[in-house]
C-alpha cells in the first residue's frame, strides 16, 4: 500500500526547515541591520515631527511616496516588523528543539568513550612501568582522576572503556555555555514581548509650566499626550505639582562656547494625590522625579514674557505670561499673543523675544546670549473683527497657540505706512496704531517643559536585558569539553594510560587540559605502584604551547 504524501504539509515542513535554519536566521539578521538604517537617515514621525514637516515641505513629490512606504516610521513599518517577527519565529523554531535537547543532556550522564579514542582531536597516551613493583590499582587511579576532574567542575561517569580489564572515566564540563546561549536568546524574546506590552500600557505627555504656576495630572493640562492603546484618562493618577523655581546657567567665560548650556535645575513642590502632603523635589536633567507611578523629566525651558494688553476701550483685555519658543542657542524666541476679548477690535501680536538684544548693523536686533541680560520684545500687531471671530478661536478647529493664522486679520500700520513694529524693554508700554490699544511688557518669567511618562514594563525590559547579558557571557566564554580516560594493564606490570579530549568549537586550551589530566593520572599510577608510600609522585611536565589539530 503506498500513500502519496500530501504536498502541502511537505511544503510547509520544507518552509519551516528553511525558516529555522541558521542560514535564514543569518540572512534575516543582516536584513534587520540594513532595514534599521533608513530610520537614521529620514526624519521619524515619533522622534522628530518638526524635522519631518520640513522634509515633506522640501520634497513634495518624493515625500508622500516615502511616507506610504513607511520610511518616516521605519520601526513600526510592515517591512521592518516582518523582518524582526520572522527572525523571532525562526529563533523560536531553533530554540525549542535546542532547549529540549539541552534539558536532556543536562540530565544525562556524559557520553561514553568512542570506540577509537585515538581518532579524537586530542589524544595522549603513556605506558608506565613501575619497575618491578605490582601495577597500580586502576580503580584507585581513576578515583584520583575523578576527584581532580570534579574539582574542575566536570561531570563524570565510570566508563567501561571498551577493553577487557580496562577501567575508564567519561567526563564533561561546560554545559553552562549552552544554558547561557539559550538564556540569551530567550531573554531577547522576553525583551521583545515586554517592549510590545509597553506600547499597550505606557503613556507619555508633555506640559509647559511657567515658573510659579502649577500642573495637575489631567488630560487638558497636557500640551501633547501619547497614550498606549490600552490607556485612558482614568489611568492618570491625580498628582499635581508647582514649579517653584527654575535655575538656568550658560557658558559665560569661554568665547568659543559662549551660551552653551551648563545647568538646568527646577524646584518642584509635588503632591502624590489630592490628600497627600506636599514634598519638595529637585528636578534636573538626568535626574527625573518620581511621582505616583510616573516620572517627570526636565526636557526644555524658555522665556514667557508677561504681557498686558489694554484694548481700544481702555480695559485690560489680556494680562499674563505668554510662553515664547526658543529658535536658536541664544534663545531668540518666537511667540504669539492672541487677545480675542479686545474691543472694539480683536488684537493679535506676533514677534520675537531677544534675551540679550544687540543691534546688528546687518540683521537688525539679535540676541547674543541666552541669559536675559537686556531683554527686548519686538512685536507687530494685527486686528480683527470680533463679530466674525477673525482670530479663529471659537470655530472648534484645533490651532497651535504658537502660530497665528493672519489670513483674515488686518496688519496694523504705523504712521509711515509700514507695518507697525514695537520694541519694548521690560516696563515699557507701546501704543498700538489705529486706537487699537496699548501693549505693556511687564517682565520676564521662565518656563520649563516637562515630559511626564509612565511605562510599567520598564523593569521587565531591564530584567530581560540583564538576563540577556548574563547569558551572553557563559555562552561566549565557557568552553564545552569532554575528556575520556582509560587505564588498562599492559605487558607485565605496565599500565597504559590514555586520555582523549573533544571540544565544541575552537578550544586552544584543550591539548593542555588533556596533558594535565594525563599527568594527574600518570602520577596516580606511579603513586599507586609505589604503594602510596610517597603520596603523589612528582607531576610530569607537559607541553604548554601547542594548539589543537584542526578537526
Amino acid at each position: 500500500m503506498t500513500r502519496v504524501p500530501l504536498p502541502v504539509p511537505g511544503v510547509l515542513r520544507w518552509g519551516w526547515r528553511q525558516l529555522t535554519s541558521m542560514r535564514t536566521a543569518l540572512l534575516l539578521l543582516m536584513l534587520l541591520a540594513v532595514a534599521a538604517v533608513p530610520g537614521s537617515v529620514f526624519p521619524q514621525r515619533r522622534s522628530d515631527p518638526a524635522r519631518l514637516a520640513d522634509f515633506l515641505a522640501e520634497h513634495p513629490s518624493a515625500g508622500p511616496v516615502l511616507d506610504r512606504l513607511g520610511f518616516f516610521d521605519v520601526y513600526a513599518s510592515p517591512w521592518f516588523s516582518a523582518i524582526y517577527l520572522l527572525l523571532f519565529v525562526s529563533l523560536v523554531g531553533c530554540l525549542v528543539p535546542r532547549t529540549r535537547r539541552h534539558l536532556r543532556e543536562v540530565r544525562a550522564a556524559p557520553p561514553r568513550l568512542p570506540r577509537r579514542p585515538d581518532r579524537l582531536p586530542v589524544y595522549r597516551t603513556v605506558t608506565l612501568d613501575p619497575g618491578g613493583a605490582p601495577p597500580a590499582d586502576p580503580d584507585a587511579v581513576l578515583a584520583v582522576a575523578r576527584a581532580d576532574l570534579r574539582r574542575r567542575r566536570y561531570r563524570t561517569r565510570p566508563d567501561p572503556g571498551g577493553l577487557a580489564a580496562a577501567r575508564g572515566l567519561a567526563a564533561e564540563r561546560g554545559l553552562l555555555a549552552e544554558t547561557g546561549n539559550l538564556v540569551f536568546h530567550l531573554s531577547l524574546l522576553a525583551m521583545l514581548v515586554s517592549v510590545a506590552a509597553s506600547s499597550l500600557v505606557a503613556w507619555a505627555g508633555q506640559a509647559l509650566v511657567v515658573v510659579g504656576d502649577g500642573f495637575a495630572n489631567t488630560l487638558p493640562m497636557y500640551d501633547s499626550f501619547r497614550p498606549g492603546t490600552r490607556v485612558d484618562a482614568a489611568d492618570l493618577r491625580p498628582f499635581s505639582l508647582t514649579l517653584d523655581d527654575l535655575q538656568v546657567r550658560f557658558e559665560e567665560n569661554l568665547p568659543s562656547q559662549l551660551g552653551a548650556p551648563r545647568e538646568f535645575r527646577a524646584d518642584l513642590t509635588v503632591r502624590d494625590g489630592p490628600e497627600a502632603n506636599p514634598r519638595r523635589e529637585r528636578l534636573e536633567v538626568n535626574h527625573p522625579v518620581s511621582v505616583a507611578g510616573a516620572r517627570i523629566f526636565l526636557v526644555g525651558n524658555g522665556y514667557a514674557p508677561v504681557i498686558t494688553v489694554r484694548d481700544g476701550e481702555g480695559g485690560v483685555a489680556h494680562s499674563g505670561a505668554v510662553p515664547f519658543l526658543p529658535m536658536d542657542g541664544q534663545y531668540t524666541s518666537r511667540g504669539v499673543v492672541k487677545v480675542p476679548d479686545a474691543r472694539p477690535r480683536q488684537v493679535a501680536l506676533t514677534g520675537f523675544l531677544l534675551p540679550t538684544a544687540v543691534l546688528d548693523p546687518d540683521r537688525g536686533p539679535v540676541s547674543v546670549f541666552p541669559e536675559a541680560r537686556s531683554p527686548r520684545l519686538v512685536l507687530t500687531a494685527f486686528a480683527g473683527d470680533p463679530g466674525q471671530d477673525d482670530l479663529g478661536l471659537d470655530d472648534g478647529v484645533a490651532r497651535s497657540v504658537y502660530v497665528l493664522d493672519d489670513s483674515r486679520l488686518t496688519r496694523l500700520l504705523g504712521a509711515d505706512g509700514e507695518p507697525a513694529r514695537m520694541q519694548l524693554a521690560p516696563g515699557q508700554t507701546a501704543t498700538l496704531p489705529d486706537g487699537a490699544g496699548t501693549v505693556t511688557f511687564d517682565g520676564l518669567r521662565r518656563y520649563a517643559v516637562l515630559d511626564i511618562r509612565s511605562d510599567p514594563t520598564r523593569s521587565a525590559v531591564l530584567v530581560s536585558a540583564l538576563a540577556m547579558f548574563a547569558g551572553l557571557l557563559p555562552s561566549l566564554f565557557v568552553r564545552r569539553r569532554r575528556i575520556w580516560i582509560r587505564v588498562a594493564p599492559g605487558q607485565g606490570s605496565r599500565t597504559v594510560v590514555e586520555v582523549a579530549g573533544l571540544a565544541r568549537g575552537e578550544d586552544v586550551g584543550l591539548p593542555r587540559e588533556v596533558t594535565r589530566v594525563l599527568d594527574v593520572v600518570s602520577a596516580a599510577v606511579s603513586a599507586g605502584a609505589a604503594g602510596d608510600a610517597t603520596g603523589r609522585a612528582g607531576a610530569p611536565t607537559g607541553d604548554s604551547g601547542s594548539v589543537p589539530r584542526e578537526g
Partner: protein
Amino acid sequence: MTVDRTALAEWSNVLVDSAILIYAIALLAFGVDLSGRGRRADQGSSAVAGADAEAEVTGAAVAPVAGGSAVATVEHAAGSGTTTTATTTTVITTTAHVVTATVPARSRAAGIAVSLTWLAFLVHLAGVLARGLSIGRVPWANMYEFSVAGALVVTGVFLAILLRRDLRYLGSFVVGPVLLVLGLAVTAFYTEAAQLVPALDSYWLLIHVSVAFVAAALFTIGFSVSVLHLLQHRRELARLLGRAPARGRFLDTLPPSAELELLAYRLHVVAFPLWTFTVVVGAVWADAAWGRYWGWDPKEVWSFVVWVVYAAYLHARATRGWAGTRSAYLVFAGFGCLVFNFVGVNLLFSGLHSYSGVG
C-alpha cells in the same frame, strides 16, 4: 585657579601633539620590522608549520620530539618525583597528537617600535589626564576628547594584549589607525576645554563611554587582524594554485590565515559583550535622562546596527558556507558601521547624541 586650568589644557594639547610625533616614529619602526621580516622570510626559514607530529620514544630518557620549533614534548619525570622510593616508574611509550605553529621571531625594529608605542602611550595618557584635570571631569564629552581618549584606549588595549601574546606584527595596523584618529582629532575636531552640557553630566558618562571605548578598541584591533587574515588567505590560495603572489611579502612572516582568523574571532568575542554592555547601559542612561530606554535616535540606530552586524558575524562563523573568509566580510561591515557611528552620526545627523562640539 582658572589660570592653572588653562595652562593644563594647553599642556594637554602639547602632550597630545608629542604623542602623535612618537606614534609616527613607532609606526615607521613597525613598518621597518614588517618589511625587514619579509626579506628574511624569503631566505628560507619555514614560516608556517602545521605538522601533526607523532613520535614514539622508548626508554627512560625522553627526547624532544623532532619536527619544528615549538613542538610539544611529553616529558615524564622519571627520576625526580619517584626516586625517593625504591621503585622507579618509567615511561615506556608516549604518543600525542601535536600541532605546531612557529611563532615568528621579530626583528629589533619591532622591539624599538613597541618601546616607542609605550612611550607614546604614556605621553598620550598624560595628555588625556591633563585635559581631564583642566576641566574637572571625564575627558570625553565632545568629539575631540572622544577621539583622543578612544585612541588612547586602542593603544592601551593593544599594549595589554602584547603583554600576554606576541602580536607585534599587528603594530602598524593598530598604531596607523590611532595616528589617523589623533590627526583628525587635532585638525578637524578640536574643541576648547569646557564644562559639560547638562545632558552629559552623569556618572553614566564614565561607565557608558569608557566601556564603549574598550569595545571599539577591540573591534578595531580585530578588524586589523581580519584584514590580515583575508590577505594571508588570498596569498595561501595563490600558492595553492601554483601562482607566486607578487605583493605583500611581509605576510610570509605572519601566522597562517587560520590562526589569524581564530585570533580575530577571539578579539571579537571579547568585544561583543562589551558592546552589548555599552548598549544596555546606554539604554539605562537614556531611561534616566530622556524617560525612555530606546527611541531610535540616530546613535541608537547605529549602535543597534553595529550590534546586529557583529552578532551576524558570530553566527556566521558557526554557519556552514559562511565560516572563514566570508564571515570576515561581516567584520568589515561591522567595523564600517562602528566608524560611521562614531564619526558619521556625530557629523551628519542631528539627534539626542549631538555632542560633537564640531562646527
